[in-house]
């Protein structure tokens, strides 16, 4: 289990990284935290001829607030996001989800940009990007930036919209509103494992205590996380109570087309979806203004 040879490039600027990508094309691979990539390279499942290290690029690891948005740099590591007061204040579900990723040492090095680019179907960041309508900011070879919606960025298992000559630079999340409830619930065989099923939810109520906005996304039910858009829209104006939660959880049970694998069969995933949606909505409701 030793990686195949490669040429190493220590990019010191975004421009340099883009130029190197342009030069080496399909032979090149970016490395940020490398917590998935290096393992795959050690197994020789990935054998890039050129490895472009972007850790030296200044300013890509920032976490800042921009009005009603939270901006997280691609190189921000899971531990920093989980521990950030700003994230806890502006969009606490992100801090919670980040704290569930892998193990302590993995969280110190793994980055949000790397996780999104890797697009593991059972990872937290793709789920969060889809749940929160994140805007993924991408630097193009020309130096121009483009922005992609989370749901469009994550295309399939290990497949994203990121071009081989592009660099993911930053993720823009909306801040949750004051009194907006939220919950992240996941179920894994062991602490830190990739989840079998996970649920993200945010819940905002109007002055009368009726649902004004529900975001609800499920991971583990498809090759990507899925957003339950129809359920979200139907929920608007409903009075959130036990029956309502039960109704939504039952609907979530039928979401997606889960597959069987070593750790769970499809029916079990449906059962988990139902249980986790129930728990997530109850917790989100509890955290909302009404709770």
């Amino acid at each position, binding site marked *: *289990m*030793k990686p195949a040879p490669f040429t190493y490039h220590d990019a010191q600027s975004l421009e340099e990284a883009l130029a190197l990508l342009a030069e080496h094309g399909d032979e090149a691979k970016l490395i940020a935290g490398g917590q998935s990539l290096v393992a795959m390279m050690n197994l020789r499942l990935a054998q890039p001829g050129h490895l472009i290290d972007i850790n030296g690029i200044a300013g890509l690891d920032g976490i800042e607030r921009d009005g009603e948005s939270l901006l997280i740099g691609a190189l921000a590591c899971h531990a920093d996001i989980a521990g950030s007061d700003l994230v806890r204040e502006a969009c606490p579900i992100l801090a919670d989800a980040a704290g569930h990723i892998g193990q302590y040492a993995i969280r110190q090095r793994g980055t949000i940009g790397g996780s999104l680019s890797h697009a593991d179907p059972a990872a937290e960041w793709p789920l969060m990007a889809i749940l929160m309508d994140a805007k993924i900011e991408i630097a193009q070879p020309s130096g121009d930036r483009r922005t992609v919606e989370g749901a469009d960025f994550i295309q399939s298992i290990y497949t994203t919209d990121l071009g081989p000559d592009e660099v993911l630079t930053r993720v823009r999340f909306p801040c949750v509103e004051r009194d907006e409830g939220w919950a992240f619930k996941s179920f894994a065989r*062991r602490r830190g*494992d990739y989840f079998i099923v996970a649920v993200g939810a945010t819940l905002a109520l109007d002055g009368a205590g009726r649902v004004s906005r529900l975001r609800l996304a499920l991971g583990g039910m498809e090759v990507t996380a899925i957003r339950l858009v129809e359920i979200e829209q139907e929920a608007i104006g409903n009075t959130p109570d036990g029956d309502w939660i039960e109704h939504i959880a039952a609907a979530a049970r039928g979401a997606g087309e889960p597959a069987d694998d070593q750790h769970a069969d499809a029916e079990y995933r449906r059962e988990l979806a139902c*249980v986790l949606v129930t728990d997530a909505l109850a917790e989100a409701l509890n955290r909302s203004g009404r709770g």
Partner: protein
Amino acid sequence: MSRVNDSNNFLSIGKSLPRKEDRRLLTGQGRYLDDIQVAGELHACFVRSPYQHALILAIDTEAAEAAPEVVAVVTGKDLAEWTTTHRMAPPIDGLLPIEMTALPADKVRFHGDPVACIVATDRYLAEDASELVEVDYEPLDPVCDMFKAMEDGAPLIEKDMGTNLISHQTFETGNILHVMESAGRVVESTFSTPRQTPLPIETRGCIAEWDEGTQHLTVHVGNQAPHPYRSALAGRLKLKETQVTVIVPDVGGGFGQKIALYREELTIAALARHLKRPVRWREDRMENLLAASHAREDFVRTRAAVDANGRITGLTLELVEDFGAYCFFPANYLARVVAVILTGPYDIGEYAFDVKVVLTNKCGNGPMRAPMAITSWVMEGTIDNIARELGLDPVQVRRLNMVADDAYPHVMATGETMEDINPGAALERGLEAIGYADFRRRQEADREHGIYRGLGICSVVESTTYGSKFYKAAGIPGSGHECAWVKVDPSGTIRASAGVMATGQGYETSFSQAVAEGLGVNPQDVDIKLGNTDIAPYGMGSRGARGGTAGGGTLYLAATGVREKALAIAAKLLGLNTAYQLTMRDGRVCRLIDDDIQETDLTLADIARTAYLDPTRLPDGMEPGLEVTRAYDPPPMTYSNSCHFCEVVVDVPTGAVEISRYVVVENCGNVLNPQIVEGQQLGAIVMGLSGSLFEQVVYDESGYNQTGLLADYLVATASDMPNIEILSVATPNRRTPIGLKGMAEGGVMGSIGAISNAVSDALSPFGAVVENHPISPSRLRLMLREKT
């Protein structure tokens, strides 16, 4: 000796001395295999089969040989010239002989089977070259299910054998058929553990050095049994045993996976000799998961004849074990122990077993901590099923069938004699500790609120130590004796050695206590030297929970021999006629006068100096020097017992199992070092819990191993495991030195049964019973769906 077995009189043993090993291990100064560097060494890696069953038509090594820094590329054909074929053919009824070459030249038999070895100056470059080896395979139909492997016309793992059923052993008592046929009720139960792997955190590996001048091979290898390993290695390389030295450094865990001479290690040793250069191999984790000996994978069915009160009048056992494709051990040996000791603490006079061991296209099996792990689950699960079917309290059924503590020694139906155990006391002590009646009330009340609690009880009678008489009776070659020496140097420093080798058990500490006790010195003054076959006496190694009794016991006997000689010299030096009233305390000769102990001016160092440097002062006829070598053959078996109590809460909607309490009551006799023993018990219990909840080597239907990474082969982490409360009802063994018994495997046996029975108890309102492992959430949900 009057003080033997009276733990109150021990000065050195029975104390929780902190470990001597810790200093180097805690500071990064340990010396594990990979920490040893040899000048001029080469690095090896293996090319492994992607097929589970295929003929090897040709292997093209040309491109690999031409790769940078590659020194050699060898295959099974090369190895056949340098090594002998291993023939496993012990004289055991029902066991067929089987042969194994160093590397397969004819066909591969499992996914991961090694077919070629690359030697280069660097591991990275060796792996580069391994990608260039081209093997032309002709795939054969594989057979990956042990039941299909027994069918007529199944693909054969060994064509010449004519069958995949490599071992079939049966036993029955005179009246069992009649009892089963005439029984009022027969309760049938099934149990199955999946394939697991020992998973030491340090993988396998070795470094082999050939000295052309002296024609001598030195092999550094992490191994539990250095001398038998040396014998095997010398034999396979056609060398004299004196031409081979095996040196075992610090070992990062073994758990049964580091006993046999593996084909990879034999290959490395042969290559070092052929190339006349040192060669090293470090198994990577994927190789370890795919191709280092696996364990378990069995199916068990019991049928218990019972009366209306739950009294068991007869019991039959069917056991089928999937042994994989290669036999590093006699195929019958692991399963047989299960069958022989199954009835454990229960008085079951009529008994029969039928044990089949089957070859399939999977990695070969070997022992894993508690090779007989399933035993206690099978017996205790059977009892729980009896209680459920008859509507009885499971504790009452246990009490009704148990041999009374004062009725030991008790001879099992299989002829095994158990003695010095107290399963009744262990059960009652544990019931009291957990508050059994109160638990049943809580269980009932919580069910009303959708909280499903369960309590699993598992009595364990653990077979430990395994003396030579056991081996002989079971028809297994080898011996259960152990050998040790204790030497006092002229300066009075003390060295001791034995044939067993530690893989984390703290022998340097606990053995120093055994020697100190026997000799009358401070444990800090005893240096234990293990793991070098040129230094240690020939012994049978560490396995079967024998380290303490066989290793520690033999060292104790050797140390008492040294003391006797030392005191005889002391008597002469003190002008006494006899050493009768002399003893040794903390390295100083003392006189026993009535109940009083008076120090003399004479020390062990004085005596040693005399023994080596002034031998004319020794008693007439006494040999100079101060050292004793002793061999000791323990009883056929020393039995320990324990009773495990596991409380769980099953989250019915998700199938998640939470262990809310774990209590174990232990009787493992007198112990050398209680803290080390407790560590063994905790580790064993968690290994059993981890196996029951998480571990499974998964082969897909075509025989492709899907668990080659630690992301796929799951083991318990700190977050998944409970705190364990250990209570003791210890009684000494009457036959062993110091009253020792073994104890390092019973925890696995007990926890497997306790957790399984606990989950079944929790789910009893649904009529669901755990019959398979791992007890995964999805499997529990599947079971519950089928029941509702």
